[in-house]
């Protein structure tokens, strides 16, 4: 790695103040700290030793945890595509995966280029180091945006979210709302026609020339939750995009229409295991989201009503369908926007679970409630913490009075 170090040292002067490329100093510093652990040592006072962990390592661990869901999502894009054109039986898994990979790559590139570009500019304006927060957000966005969303929409929404949900608050670690979910919310409310319905979730046309074919007659691109929302009668008949009946196993494995990252509950649970074993995500939040969702789903399932068709779903199916699991594992556990006290984490997580199912069941306009539930609880997280901390304060005051 000596030659990289030499090269970096050689080009360094150009990026210093007065150099030709001084406007890109943050970019250079970002690259340098990415390649080499900073040689900065502790000051004369304070802790002289530091733990090996930093935010880069933390963020990269989250990305690793996202990979199973990402790969399953890619495969599923291909699977849904070939199902839609009636060639699922004669296409290999690899072809499906490659198709999904090619279909998703442009979205991933757009998300990172737009988001990181804004981060670089913001870092340069404030003369700060480039921060790692967007590494994860940039991958979350392609995973929660429907695959057929036009790239320019994704770009606009990403730019809006990064600027107005993050940078105006001070950048990584300072945002109130989850940036990836704000991106999706902007798309959802700004371009509703592209974000739901038959055309949003299944890529029916070819991707860079791969997977040509005409869509079968029985095709219907609605997600299972989309079908639930329009369900008539007191029984549910959920089917895949080619009209075949779906089972709970399909929901769990992820062979259903939906946003790329959210379909496979199995892959999400592998990611959850990585997050919990490494201790990156709070088990308190994650478990309480599932607990809250399960409790609310059981409650609505106990009194099923054809008016609210989602109440006909079994509680476990509720957790496997839509974005619930993905939201519980990767969105609710965002430490920056969630509650930070232990008790607060239980309340925060539980209410996210409850609200998600509540919105799903009783609001016909929104077949999926996870996004709205988390954004709502993001807003309440500081209040929850405030209440929990006030108990500590009261205890301290009571102690002083006693003395």
């Amino acid at each position: 790695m000596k030659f990289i170090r030499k090269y970096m040292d050689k080009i360094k002067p150009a990026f210093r103040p007065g150099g030709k490329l001084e406007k890109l100093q943050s970019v250079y510093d970002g690259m340098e700290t990415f390649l080499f652990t900073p040689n900065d040592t502790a000051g004369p006072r304070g802790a002289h030793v530091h733990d090996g962990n930093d935010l880069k390592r933390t963020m990269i661990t989250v990305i690793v945890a996202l990979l199973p869901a990402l790969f399953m999502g890619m495969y599923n894009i291909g699977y849904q595509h070939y199902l839609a054109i009636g060639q699922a039986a004669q296409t290999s898994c690899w072809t499906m995966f490659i198709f999904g990979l090619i279909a998703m790559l442009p979205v991933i590139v757009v998300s990172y280029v737009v988001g990181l570009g804004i981060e670089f500019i913001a870092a340069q304006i404030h003369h700060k180091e480039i921060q790692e927060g967007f590494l994860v957000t940039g991958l979350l966005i392609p995973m929660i945006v429907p695959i057929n969303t036009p790239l320019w929409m994704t770009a606009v929404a990403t730019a809006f979210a990064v600027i107005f949900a993050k940078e105006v608050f001070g950048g990584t670690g300072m945002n109130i709302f989850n940036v990836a979910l704000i991106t999706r919310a902007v798309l959802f409310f700004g371009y509703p026609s592209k974000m739901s319905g038959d055309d949003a979730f299944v890529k029916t046309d070819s991707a860079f020339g791969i997977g040509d074919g005409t869509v079968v007659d029985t095709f219907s691109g609605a997600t299972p939750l989309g079908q639930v929302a329009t369900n008539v009668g007191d029984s549910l008949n959920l089917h895949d995009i080619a009209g075949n009946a779906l089972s709970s196993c399909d929901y769990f494995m992820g062979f259903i229409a939906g946003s790329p990252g959210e379909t496979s509950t199995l892959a999400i649970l592998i990611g959850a295991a990585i997050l919990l074993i490494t201790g990156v995500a709070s088990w308190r939040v994650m478990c309480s989201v599932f607990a809250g969702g399960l409790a609310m789903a059981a409650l609505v399932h106990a009194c099923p009503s054809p008016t609210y068709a989602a109440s006909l779903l079994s509680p476990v199916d509720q957790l496997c369908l839509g974005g619930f699991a993905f939201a519980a594992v990767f969105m609710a556990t965002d430490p920056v926007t969630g509650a930070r006290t232990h008790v607060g984490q239980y309340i925060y997580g539980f209410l996210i679970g409850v609200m998600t199912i509540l919105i799903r069941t009783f609001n016909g306009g929104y077949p999926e409630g996870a996004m709205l539930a988390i954004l709502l609880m993001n807003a309440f997280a500081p209040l929850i913490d405030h209440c929990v901390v006030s108990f500590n304060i009261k205890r301290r005051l009571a102690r002083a009075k006693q003395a």
Partner: protein
Amino acid sequence: MAIIKLKKGFDLRLEGQISDGTEPVVAAPSSTIGIVPDDFEGIVPRMDVRVGDSVIAGQVLYHDKNHETIKVTSPVCGTIKEVRRGERRKILAVVIEPANKQDDAVTYDVKRPIKELLLESGLWVMMRQRPYDVVPNPEATPRDIFVTAFDSAPLAVNRTSFSAGEQQAAEAAVKALSTLTTGKVYIGISPAQDINISGAEINTFVGPHPAGNAGVQIANVKPVNKGETVWTLSLDTLLRIGALLTTDRMDYNVTVAVAGPMVAEPMLVKSVIGASIDSVLAGNIKGGAEPRLIAGNVLSGVKVELDGYLRAPYTLLSVIAENNDPDEFMGWAALSPKRFSIYRLFTSWLAGLRSKPTNLDARIKGGERAIVRLDEYDDMLPMDIYAEFLIKAIIARNIEKMEELGIYEVAPEDFALAEFADTSKLELQRIVRDGLNWLRGEME
């Protein structure tokens, strides 16, 4: 006598720990002795001697500008060689050249009130008070006095029992101290210690570092409330008080542990307060990397150079490497089980490295960030305090919130372990120290 179990915290183990039963060796006499006013937080020095004056052991060197009765004394006989000053004429060190004969010392009339004795002898500045973690204000009466009998910080060495003379001295000191407080004298010991001093309430603290910190012990015995004052001192200071009361003279001898990954042979060294670092270290350093010398422990000590001096509390000289791995390539992506972390994000967790002695260097290993990860501070602070909320209140200089969240209970050293563990690499101890000093300025 209570046993208090603490779960939070972490016992950081470094290579170069002194093994049990090591006998101390006597250091060569130091060619100069230095007293550093920065060691005594809260004191503004006003010199009582000039360069060229000759002093004897126990003679006053300087006093506090705000409380003239608080004095700092010379640990040796000799002549004042230099009063080293920095920016805005701040006194950095008072340097004394020791005389060849160390046979003269100030004797004290032990029948005088104990408070006067402590102030006059310079023992007073070795104590601290909560709130603010500064040298105690002589005008305030402490609610209680807490003696910490062990240091739980990395590489620290603790005595496990007393000699007969020490027992007598400790009992005399406790008896004298208990007249200064309206409450009790508490002594916090570790399970390894066989210490019992009549007149004091003994509590045993079981658990990892920072169980030995005064702040942690107070918080788990009888927390400090707003408006209350509590004094804290170490066992060494208690024994010095005892020695003064039983022998009429100050005891300026210290036993320093010279330890750490970069020390060739970890050893205990007998010397005096203010001895120069090179006289204590005597070249006992491994080669291979640039060493960092730390007077005190690696979590809250002060970086010193070879020509520097031992710093309060004069018990430990830690030597670690400045940088073991310059230009480490993509360290954040390391899969090596050798990269030390207390978290489970590195493979060193699987290799069980967390509980083995390690060779940490002084690199910060990451850039400063906003607080992102959960519970990092709380897990390292066994007190009923929301550390992260308190830190934020301090940064915001919000007095009301600081008070509500327990600013009066903490000292910078209580956040030392959190600073080590912090993924966001914030200088927590500096934040707390600046906040305490600022608050003290606002309140007094």
